[in-house]
């Protein structure tokens, strides 16, 4: 269902590699399964032609990979960026996390990516292959005699259903048409949680977070989590490997992480995409974004390079802490 084809992307990558514009390509390759698409660095046209993948499971946001890869590659690296990825790209530039000169960014349009969990809800477990025929996905499983046809729209990831922007905010070159920022309904679910009583909300999150296995996938995929050394891996931080006092304490990790990325999170949704336990982690981040918007005026992290996020900025118009407190009081 993507408007742009694999062939077009491969052609672009091969051309840029051949004319020496870039010396490596950051793209998608097949993982263990068809839906299990993995970021990869391609160093030659042959590798690209053979292994480059582009389908509805190419959700991975490459911005974060530039932090490590720009340091490893001689010359420039080509990166394909979907509109939502470009916000992370800008945010990382704002934080001086990689050298812009070492990147050749190609903006590509995106029609929304599929969520494998939603596919499984329809076809069940044991998926062995998925073919994309443009409008729908043909899913073969171990247990079904014939492949099941699944509508691409029916299995679209939540972050794509509530897509916030089809506009590329950063690129060197754009393939296809650029889109617009979208008035999405992405805060509706947050508003629903806000309307709950504190007890209901606590139960909701306890239920969701109790599934966490602390695999750190959310952290590892998050473009805002690029610290040289994560405090949770750092023996000097006094928070590393602490034995939890109760079953909920460890789940505080997610709330702390949401604070950690507050004001820097672009709402790219990678955390929820990679979570093997399907915890809606993006809701924590969106709560912060919604609050920041309401308290300090609309702010989209990564919309432009060098913007001063409200939480690390001061203006005389900033609301007084008391007002925040009063509102918090009403919420409770």
């Amino acid at each position, binding site marked *: 269902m993507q408007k742009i084809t694999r062939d077009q992307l491969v052609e672009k990558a091969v051309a840029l590699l051949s004319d020496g514009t870039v010396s490596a390509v950051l793209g998608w390759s097949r993982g263990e399964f068809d839906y299990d698409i993995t970021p990869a660095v391609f160093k030659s046209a042959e590798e690209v032609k053979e292994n480059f993948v582009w389908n509805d499971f190419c959700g991975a946001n490459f911005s974060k990979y530039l932090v490590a890869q720009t*340091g490893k590659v001689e010359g420039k690296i080509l990166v394909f960026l979907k509109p939502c990825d470009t916000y992370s790209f800008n945010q990382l530039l704002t*934080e*001086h996390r990689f050298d812009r000169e070492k990147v050749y960014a190609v903006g590509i349009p995106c029609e929304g990516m599929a969520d494998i969990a939603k596919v499984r809800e329809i076809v069940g477990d044991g998926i062995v292959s998925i073919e994309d025929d443009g409008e729908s996905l043909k899913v073969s499983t171990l247990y079904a005699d014939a492949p099941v046809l699944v509508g691409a729209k029916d299995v679209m990831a939540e972050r794509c259903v509530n897509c916030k922007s089809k506009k590329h905010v950063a690129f060197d070159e754009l393939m296809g048409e650029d889109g617009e920022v979208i008035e999405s309904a992405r805060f509706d679910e947050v508003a629903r949680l806000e309307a709950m009583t504190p007890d209901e909300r606590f139960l909701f999150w306890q239920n969701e977070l109790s599934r966490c296995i602390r695999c750190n996938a959310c952290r590892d995929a998050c473009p805002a989590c690029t*610290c*040289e050394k*994560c405090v949770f891996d750092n023996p000097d931080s*006094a928070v590393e490997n602490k034995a939890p006092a109760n079953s909920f304490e460890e789940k505080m990790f997610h709330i702390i992480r949401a604070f950690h990325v507050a004001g820097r999170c672009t709402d790219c949704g990678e955390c929820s995409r990679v979570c093997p336990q399907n915890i809606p982690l993006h809701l924590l981040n969106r709560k912060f974004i919604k609050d920041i918007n309401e308290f300090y005026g609309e702010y989209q992290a990564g919309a432009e390079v060098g913007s001063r996020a409200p939480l*690390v900025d001061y203006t005389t118009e900033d609301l007084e802490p008391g007002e925040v407190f009063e509102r918090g009081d009403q919420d409770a």
Partner: protein
Amino acid sequence: MQRVGVFVCWCGSNIAGTVDVAAVAEALKNEPGVVFSTDYQYMCSQAGQDIIKNAIAEHNLTGIVVCSCSPRMHEATFRKTAAAAGLNPYMVEIANIREQCSWVHKDMTTGTEKAIILGKAAVAKVNLNTPLTPGESPVTKRALVIGGGIAGIQTALDIADAGFPVDIVETKPTIGGKMAQLDKTFPTLDCAACILTPKMVDVAQNEKIRIFSYSEVEEVGGFVGNFDVKIKKKARYVKEDICTGCGACVDKCPMKKNPNEFNLGMDNRPAIYIPFAQAVPKVATIDPNACNMLKNGKCGLCARVCAAGAIDYTQKDEIIEEKYGAIVVATGFNPISMEKFDEFAYNQSKDVITSLEFERLTNAAGPTAGHLERPSDGKSPKTIVFVQCVGSRCDACSEKGKEYCSKICCMYTAKHAMLTRDKYPDTDVYVFYIDVRTPGKNFDEFYRRAVEEFGVKYIKGMVGKVTPEGDKLKVQASDLLSNKQLHIDADLVVLAAAIEPDKSARPLATMLTASMDTNDFFTEAHPKLRPVESPTAGVFLSGACQGPKDIPETVSQAGAAASKVIGLLAKDKLTGNPCVAHSNELMCNGCSSCERVCPYGAITYEDKEFRMPNRTTKIRRVASVNPAVCQGCGACTVACPSGAMDLKGFANSQIIAEVDAICK
């Protein structure tokens, strides 16, 4: 492993009354690292300090915990004690078991329990303390005084008298402030100009003092001893060094109808003006909003009549950059706007005026040359009603006025009433009051003279409504003592408007990172013990910017602020605070978050080469902190996403150890 000594203070009965100090000392003996623990009646006394010194020597202590009052009170004392015994002063931790424990608890059991917990937290922290050595920074031996009223003038004169150069920045074209507008001063009734203008001349003639009039502070950087200040000298379109103040231009200017700020708009001034005859500097200023030459390029009369050739229509705002060791805030006050007080008909009748306007009306240099005339028709008022507490002492929820007492109104109203009765004995003078407050030397005697000798009619009660009717003002009021409604036909109503800090104070406080209270008065470092210092090092307070004050109080505070400044400037070097931020370069992402929140500009970035695995290197951008500029506020440690920023003496690990000890 540290060897920690614990010293529990009774503070007489202040602590021992609610905390079982012996039990605290006993309980803390078992904490990790503690090798000695004792209690004593007054730990801060000589004998108490000797106990600490002896214990340090006898038990080879490497750190001490004093369970006593707030560190703001005696941390410095005990650090000195430790230093005298050869221990690094930053190996001292204070557990506040007085203000945060014994004073807020009534019950001995809970008080003792909490004191033990606070002690445990301090022990946990001191176990992680490391000896710190403060750096030194030089002192720029020049002071800046912001505001050129009596507060600023007195402070500047006193500092200059000690031999240090001082700059005064004043937004108006002249120094003098509110006092220059006053007629007489209570309680001695000497004329304000007679005592103020000689001081203004002293300022002008003092070679240590520079006056930047018609100027504003634009930007403040740096820190105590080393402030970098940008001062905007607004274009006055007159060359200050050439103008002789002869006034020929003022006489010839055709644009004469502009409200005269100095007389509070009760008469007019030309577009080019000198605020008053004794102005300092005595230099003309062109009002760009009134001058036809500046607005339309037509006229140029002042330039033609100026024999000195001082007029310069092309003058631009000028930015002056200067370094200062100390800054004194003396931004003063203003009466509040009477806009919201419709009941007194201030906006409906010219004959309802504020007390400051009354000062101008009775001032020999004022719009009526000192003759008491009604602004509306110039007639002599025969009945005058003074209303006190207009906008002062309002309910906390009042949107019209202020909760505080403006302090000066009782006395100046007594003065106004007395002077009116003295000069015009046929005038009926009423004063409506809530309370008459006269706590000052010779103040109550002054007020009683107004009542007893001069026959001023003081009525306890508030004026409810003033209605202009014909050429009279119908005043409706209540007399609370005789429980009667009064109706008075007045010719003039004078409102004792509350006073509030100058509007420039809040943006200035932001620039100085000095704190303010909810009313925008600057906060002092300690209300009783450090009343002229702001909590920001190197920033001092003088006059009404800190709270409502009369002239005697303002002058004493101005002198006190000056003495603090002199004490600072007399030092060649300042010992810094070693509790500053530092960045762990191995963890720093170079993301610039810390730089953005640093109020002192202490953080810069550099590209550094780091060794990586397999003999490779990597260049990374990392933060570095200038310890001389860092004030240890800790904003960066909170903003740092990777936890690379930490504060010496208040490391994250130390804080968490304290929290752990409390929660254990």
